[in-house]
């Protein structure tokens, strides 16, 4: 079946603008994760959804970052008033409930000028 998909693949924006990044998980996967990967680093956890609710949002760096998953499938990561430091690859992963393996999408590369 289809894997995790993310759109857009690349996003260039200007400092201060608002962006939305989309993640479409594997069909039937109830757990969804967002990670951020800065250049030369490993991915860092942002937020985890179980179904429609955010089960753990402890990784969100500040209140400019927000994520939703209104119907328990597609998720959108929203970043307000973008800053140059937000430039990174944003990775999404999904897994079956209680399943330990997470499957990743190809990521969205965000560049804030």
């Amino acid at each position, binding site marked *: 079946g289809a894997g995790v998909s993310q759109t857009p693949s690349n996003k260039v924006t200007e400092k201060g603008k608002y962006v939305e990044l989309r993640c479409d998980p594997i069909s039937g996967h109830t*757990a969804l*994760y967002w*990670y951020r990967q800065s250049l*030369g*680093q*490993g*991915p*860092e*956890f942002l937020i*985890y959804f*179980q179904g429609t609710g955010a*089960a*753990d949002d402890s*990784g969100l760096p500040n209140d400019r970052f927000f994520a939703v998953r209104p119907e328990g499938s597609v998720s959108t990561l929203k970043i307000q008033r973008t800053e140059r430091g937000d430039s990174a*690859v944003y*990775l999404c*992963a999904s*897994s079956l*409930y*209680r*399943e*330990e*393996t*997470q*499957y*990743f*999408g*190809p*990521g969205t*590369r965000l560049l804030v000028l």
Partner: protein
Amino acid sequence: AQTVTQSQPEMSVQEAETVTLSCTYDTSESDYYLFWYKQPPSRQMILVIRQEAYKQQNATENRFSVNFQKAAKSFSLKISDSQLGDAAMYFCAYRRRVQGGSEKLVFGKGTKLTVNP
């Protein structure tokens, strides 16, 4: 908080030879999972191998095997008969085991593997 350390920023190996990538972790938990992910330039994180901490037997997947030393909190990846397609960033990751739920991954900084023809 759990941490994962990969002390080798870069490694290289000749095609058809064997290479070992190192990983250590710090946790106070006794039940957890460990993973190795591969990330080629395409950015897609691909699961290479996983290990359950409660299993003493080291996991193997074809040419990939691990040396899991729980007491030493060490989890190295051995790649045998290296192929050009193995060239990528390799990330070690830790996940706490929780009852009735899922849990985030904690990653190391990665090791860049180059395979020389």
